[in-house]
């Protein structure tokens, strides 16, 4: 279970840059209205993931990456609220939407659709403000999620098999025994030994790694186009972590699904991802090809992050360089570029006055920083 094979694979993977997007975020904003004020956890995120692409979203704790991931399927609990932007996904087939609607017999009143300022990209539908049936048709079927804490993310009082078959039967009506067979197949596929027996186990009878495999099996049960993995390996030990990443990589290659990998661990990102989006205080500050970002990081924050990782063969007396300063208090968000107070290249009067522009080079490497404005 060495980590090398995956990284080799990453470099050899060929991505079609013109593949249709499976997810497109435009200006997504999520706020938490707390008693002491409003925290903008996600502040205008634009991101696109294409079919088969693996995008790692990296950043320190509290940078909004998890909230961003949850906002996609509108899973943000109160007091969080999506206040702007749109989440575009390929329009689900009307039969799927009708099936989702049929599940709630009572018709819900439609939420008011926000005035659509942007025209929908072709074949896509905006999830924010959409009919709940459309959202439910996308959840689990088109976009599935794996969460960080496999213990608390599974219901402790339901057998794992039942939790998987529930997901299967929701989106593809079939007899219970057929669904159960599929659940066993899925468990086998994610590397659980004796799946015929484990299918009847309760989550507390499984180890952390096995639970996460169950979560992955559940997420895969409806063959999603996009798997959002929110810190899938954070709660696991290093060996199990490597196995889970390996599993995700092989499932991805086998099914051609896209993955959005949320992680604070650049090492994890490096093992799995094709491209990287670096987030800082709710903004994507840099996005580009994985190799490109590791080779020539542009944003001062990305550089600082990469400097803070220990390297093999580094002299033992060389001190690690942590990112200077602290993540600012959420209520005291710096004006202009949110990173300016920790930045080594801070330019007074420029960085602290207006949000930095988005600079995009020919390779599609994007960065939000005034340093590159001159190049254009």
């Amino acid at each position, binding site marked *: 279970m060495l980590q090398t094979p995956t990284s080799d694979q990453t470099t050899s993977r060929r991505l079609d840059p013109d593949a249709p997007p499976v997810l497109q975020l435009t200006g997504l904003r999520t706020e938490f209205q707390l008693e002491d004020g409003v925290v903008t956890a996600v502040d205008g995120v634009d991101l696109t993931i294409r079919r088969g692409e693996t995008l790692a979203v990296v950043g320190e704790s509290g940078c909004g990456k998890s909230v961003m991931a949850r906002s996609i399927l509108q899973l943000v*609990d*109160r007091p969080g609220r999506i206040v702007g932007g749109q989440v575009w996904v390929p329009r689900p087939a009307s039969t799927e939407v009708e099936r989702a609607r049929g599940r709630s017999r*009572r018709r819900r009143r439609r939420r008011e659709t926000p005035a659509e300022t942007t025209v929908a990209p072709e074949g896509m539908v905006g999830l924010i403000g959409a009919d709940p049936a459309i959202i439910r048709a996308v959840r*689990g079927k088109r976009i599935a999620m794996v969460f960080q804490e496999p213990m608390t993310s599974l219901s402790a009082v339901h057998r794992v098999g039942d939790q998987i078959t529930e997901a299967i039967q929701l989106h593809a009506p079939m007899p219970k025994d057929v669904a159960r067979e599929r659940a066993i197949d899925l468990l086998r596929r994610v590397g659980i030994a004796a799946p015929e027996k484990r299918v009847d186990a309760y989550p*507390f009878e499984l180890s952390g790694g096995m639970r996460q495999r169950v979560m992955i099996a559940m997420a895969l049960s409806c063959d999603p186009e996009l798997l959002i993995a929110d810190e899938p390996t954070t709660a696991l030990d290093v060996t199990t972590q490597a196995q889970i990443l390996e599993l995700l990589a092989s499932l991805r290659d086998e099914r051609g699904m896209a993955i959005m990998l949320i992680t604070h661990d650049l090492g994890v990102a490096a093992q799995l991802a094709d491209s990287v989006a670096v987030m800082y205080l709710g903004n994507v500050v840099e996005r580009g090809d994985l190799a490109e970002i590791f080779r020539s990081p542009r944003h001062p924050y990305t550089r600082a992050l990469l400097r803070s990782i220990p390297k093999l063969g580094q002299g033992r007396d060389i001190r690690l360089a942590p990112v200077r300063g602290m993540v600012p208090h959420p209520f005291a968000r710096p004006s202009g570029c949110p990173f300016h107070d920790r930045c080594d290249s801070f330019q007074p009067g420029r960085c602290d006055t207006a949000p930095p522009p988005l600079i995009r080079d020919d390779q599609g490497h994007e960065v939000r920083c005034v340093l590159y404005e001159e190049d254009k």
Partner: protein
Amino acid sequence: MGKYTLRRIGLMVITLVAISFVTFWIIQLPPGDYVSTLVAQAESRGQVITPEQMAALRVRYGLDDPFLVQYWNWISNIVFHGDFGQSFAYNRPVSTLIWDRVALSFFLSVSTLLFVWAVAFPVGIYSAVKQYSPGDYIATFFGFVGMAIPEFLLALVFLWLGVRYFDQSAGGLFSPEYVDAAWNLGKVLDLASHLWLPILIIGISGTAGLIRVTRANLLDELYKPYVITARAKGLSEWKLLVKYPVRMSLSPFFSTVGWLLPGLISGETIISIVLSLPTTGPLLFGGVLSQDMYLVGSFILILSALTVVGTLLSDLALAWWDPRIRRRYQES
């Protein structure tokens, strides 16, 4: 599981022995005994009981025997003959006295329980799901008011309202014209028209409490990660709510459901006295006042036994409901 149940039953028997002993001891603690109550009553009527008569009564009731002998006589009759002893005051077997009143107590408790559940669960769930909505505030307001108002006060207020505005007879189970009548439709309707009031009064504080408990339990569960997982599968909100957080939030409920068992026959003493309902409650109260020791002792013993049995049933119900508990039992 079977082994666990057996061990629990064994412990239960030991507990009951201890309880019976303590019960019997406590009802003998106050100074005086049933004979002194008799003497006091006689004196208040201007009669005199001579010391010889008193001694004769004491011998007849075995009141001068050593404590352990009295206890043994009492408990061995219960265990071997199902005989709970004789009530001094009523001069009838305790079991007959209690049985006479159990039916009504039982009926009242069960109807109250159904009323409480039917109101409190939906309101509590609504209150949690729509936390801080106007509906939640209304439910919370009534919840606190219902818990804060003493039941007897409510009973008095309702009695007054009934007499003043609805021309109903105060308290009791029947209107005067039906009290001695044979059972017919009119009498049943009359009974129903009287019973809703105690059900409502007894139910209000229970409902208020259960609304708060349901709300708190459910709020603990509503934002747990497994709920988000289920939502991410594409479940509709209603199905999701019932299958995951509501189910989870019922565990504390199951862990206390067995305590309802003694409540079924304890017969809401205060309300029954205020509303003059012939349940078991006033019987016990009267027995305590007149130091009718076999009546009180046996009654408390029955309540204790039901409490202990109820606790066991609760634990078994919880094991049936929650696999984590089941596993813990199997391991122990």
